């Protein structure tokens, strides 16, 4: 009797989410799978066309450019951000004075709205009056045209992504603070150097968090959208900054090819699933679930 009452209450309390889960998650997921096999525009209802969207994507030059751009961006921005986030967290974890001030400074860039961030960097990287190139010039380096040279637009975006490592850094910092000092002291007594302590004690202890941040990083970086969308409309110059999510958005809302966009969405979803599974598999060997 008691149990039944609790069951009913539990179900009632969960009801809003059960509805949300179905209406805003399962239904859209299934529908987008269906649309991906349809010719569907904003004006017409979906018409089944089999795998046409997928085979067209396979031969679509722009699609492959976007795939390449997105993978390149992720391959550089992700490892770089991870290393810098861990590095900053370790610096902050040394009990230096003013830790909270430094922490705030490193974290603030990740608070800033994407669009504002894009505006700010458009100004800093500006070819004519940009302050970054002026600074580089003062130490004798001739800065590139970050915003208009095909070779430098992606590095510019990667540089900006490094500036936003604050979130990952805070998560690392929290996990570093949970590493038992007894372990570190013990290894110190055994004569371990600072590097050996990091390599053999600290990193294994925070490995679950490294894995977590890596998976979140993969998911996030493959969906990069707002900043390039605002800074480089249409992926200018020469589509060098045309990313997967931008092409998907354009297909759906500018070219009104909803079915095509849905096919792109499902490919992205499957790729993210696979990459996440691979990342978990590969890193599981190295992940240590003793502490944290």
């Amino acid at each position, binding site marked *: 009797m008691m149990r039944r009452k609790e069951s009913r209450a539990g179900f009632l309390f969960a009801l809003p989410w059960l509805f949300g889960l179905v209406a805003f998650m399962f239904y859209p997921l299934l529908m987008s799978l269906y649309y991906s096999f349809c010719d569907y525009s904003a004006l017409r209802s979906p018409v089944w066309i089999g795998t046409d969207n997928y085979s067209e994507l396979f031969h679509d030059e722009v699609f492959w450019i976007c795939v390449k751009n997105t993978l390149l961006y992720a391959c550089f921005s992700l490892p770089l951000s991870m290393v810098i986030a861990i590095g900053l967290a370790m610096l902050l974890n040394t009990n230096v004075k003013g830790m909270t001030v430094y922490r705030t400074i490193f974290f603030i860039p990740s608070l800033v*709205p994407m669009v504002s961030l894009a505006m700010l960097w458009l100004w800093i990287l500006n070819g004519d009056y940009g302050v970054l190139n002026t600074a580089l010039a003062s130490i004798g380096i001739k800065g590139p045209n970050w915003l208009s040279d095909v070779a430098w637009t992606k590095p510019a975006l990667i540089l900006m992504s490094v500036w936003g490592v604050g979130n990952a850094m805070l998560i690392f910092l929290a996990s570093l603070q949970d590493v038992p000092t007894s372990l570190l002291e013990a290894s110190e007594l055994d004569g371990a150097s600072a590097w050996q302590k990091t390599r053999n004690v600290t990193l294994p202890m925070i490995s679950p968090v490294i894995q*977590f941040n890596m998976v979140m990083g993969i998911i996030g970086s493959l969906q990069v959208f*707002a900043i390039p969308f*605002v800074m480089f409309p249409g992926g200018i110059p020469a589509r060098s900054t045309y990313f997967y999510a931008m092409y998907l958005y354009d297909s759906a809302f500018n070219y009104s090819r909803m079915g095509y966009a849905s096919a792109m969405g499902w490919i992205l979803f499957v790729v993210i699933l696979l990459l996440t599974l691979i990342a978990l598999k590969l890193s599981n060997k190295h992940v240590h679930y003793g502490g944290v």
Partner: protein
Amino acid sequence: MNQKKFSTALTHAALVTLSCLFIFPFLWLLDTAVKPISETMKQPPVWIPSKFEFGNFWEAVNYGSDKVGYIPFLVYAENTVMLALLVVTGTVVSNAIVAYSFARLRWWGRDLIFAVTLATMMVPFPVMMVPTFTIFKHLGWIGTYRPLWVPAWFGSAFSIFLLRQFFKTIPFELSEAAKIDGAGEWTIFRSIILPLSKPALSVVALFSFMGTWNDFLGPLIYLLRQETFTLSLGLEFYHSKAGGTQWNLLMAATSIVILPVLVVFFFCQKQFIKGISITGIK
């Protein structure tokens, strides 16, 4: 001992250098925002403006109020605040209720559904973009704020997870005692769990406020008329219409969009850091 001093000095030097690199873009933003237009284009750059033009902020907010292309920044601000209020309220209310069920009530299928809930955090938004748009189109909601706030009232995986972790730490004896006194689940939720969960609830409120304030893709998809835009969208519009030349005004407008976020952060720093730290601990 000497070596220790040396390494502390080294750490400090590294932190100071890195801090400068991280903070510089903001200083440059503010610096540009208060410059006269002529000094934004000078080479070498003018580091300290000859005259602090605080009027730039006013001018940015009222840009072109006498022309057709008027960009009503204050209207955008009002829209954004209103939207954020609806989203934050919905997020806190719905997720608290749902998390209570996952954390403290036993029901058939609970753990399975919770696992599914966690898994949905991996689903990329672009894959659901088209069908979600279609749903709201059928409801006739395109061009209104409803697609942006109604879903918030039906829970979100991340907030449910965060609140559930917190609710689970509240001693179950409290609920049992209340039950013996004849209290129902709703009463227990309202008068025991909620008052004890203020820190966790404020973290959820904070994150959802930030999320709404920063959201770009949602308003881009659903809002059509200029006077309904949010600040993020308005700033982009501002850039493509008026910016590109008047950098001082664009930077002034940008600082205005950033400012509230920074103010909120400074007042709620502790909650923030706690909230983000919880995220990483599975």
